[in-house]
């Protein structure tokens, strides 16, 4: 199914050192990179420039260590290139080239680091991590089972919605309404809500997802 393919597109299979790290450690590393990049410029400009540059180098090395390609790095950067240029220009003009570099390097390092995490961890593992993260909240009245059910429902629904978009586009094209925004979107939303209600009824009929003891 097309929708499923799109969900796993971020993952690049491999057996590198980084792939073999556990999700917890990777998350911890990512968090420390973010803290380093945000906190170090507060100490002094020199420390900030040194730390962010070093972090960026480490992250870029990690990127290739995980077996990821240049294209993937460029794709991550290209999305925000215009904003980076704007930020760089303003920081240079206000605070000089060194500060501008440390700001840009900090953004690049954190973005690329998180890119590595996403590329080296299968989606299933990420979702399991999320479920484990929510578990302790049970003490505060959260309901991890129903939360996981909702997440599963959402993932299952994505292929349906993408399919609905494709069907509606074909239908609109057949009627010569391909450029009509309403003809392209309204049927999708109506189909989606109908689908949600059918799913809700099916769940309720099986006694799933209802709050306990009310």
């Amino acid at each position, binding site marked *: 199914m097309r*929708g499923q393919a*799109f*969900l796993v*597109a*971020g993952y690049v299979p491999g057996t590198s050192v980084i792939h073999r790290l556990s999700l917890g450690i990777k998350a911890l590393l990512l968090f420390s990179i973010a803290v380093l990049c945000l906190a170090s410029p507060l100490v002094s400009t020199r420390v900030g420039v040194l730390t962010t540059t070093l972090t960026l180098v480490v992250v870029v090395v990690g990127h290739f260590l995980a077996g990821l390609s240049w294209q993937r790095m460029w794709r*991550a950067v290209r*999305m*925000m*290139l*215009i*904003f*980076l240029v*704007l*930020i760089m220009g*303003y*920081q240079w003009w206000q605070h000089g080239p060194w500060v501008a570099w440390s700001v840009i390097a*900090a*953004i690049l390092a*954190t*973005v*690329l680091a*998180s*890119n590595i*995490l*996403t590329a080296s*961890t299968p989606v299933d593992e*990420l*979702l399991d991590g*999320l479920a484990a993260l929510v578990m302790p909240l049970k003490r505060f009245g959260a309901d991890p089972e*129903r939360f996981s*059910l*909702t*997440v599963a*429902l*959402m*993932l299952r*629904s994505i292929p*349906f*919605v*993408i399919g609905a*978009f*494709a069907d509606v*586009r074909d239908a609109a094209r057949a009627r010569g309404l391909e450029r009509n*925004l*309403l003809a392209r*979107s*309204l049927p999708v*939303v109506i189909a*989606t*809500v109908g689908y*949600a*209600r059918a*799913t*809700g*009824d099916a*769940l*309720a009929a099986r006694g799933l997802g*209802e*709050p306990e003891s*009310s």
Partner: protein
Amino acid sequence: MSFSRPVDETLSTSTPLSDAPNNKDGLRSRRVRWGAMDLSLIAVFAALLAASIAVPGINVGPAGVAITLQTLVVVLCGLVLGFARGTAAVGLYVLLGLIGLPIFSGFRAGPAVLASPSAGYIIGFIFGAATVGLLATWAVRSRWRAAALFAAAMAGTVVIHLSGIVGFVIKGMSLPTAMLADVVFLPGDILKNVLAVIIALSLHRAFPDLLLRRSK
């Protein structure tokens, strides 16, 4: 011909609901647990948000963020699901995007998005849907329903754009540049709000009990 059932199950939303059950519902609403239908709606609207970036969007503005139906669906979450469920749907979408599903515009994913300059918009989506949802519950009962819903949608858009500008400035852009970078997307979003209101009106007509809870 006789009805076997009393017909006070509020099938239409045009007649204002009586205040008594409404108030009770309002008082309890903090503790009202969501049923299977609510969970399903939240999940499917989050899926709609995720899917709206996977279909080809319309490219407006100088490079950068492609304009998709994403903000339209964010506004729609508020208009159709109301405050709590709308916020939950957008929140679920953002949460899953942040843990690494490639569901943000441009198939970006993971905590990286928080570090990127357009992070303000992603966070703003949650507040935007909350604002729209809060106002929509009132707007749908108003006499000028379409205008009121549009006002609610615009309020949400303002919140999203303010949040986006704040995000730019935090990442080190000057305020005027940030506003300029933001204003490019405003005309598209206003157009999408008109569309969202038309869709929401159709939906409320097709599924009258969608926004206003059925009285049990």
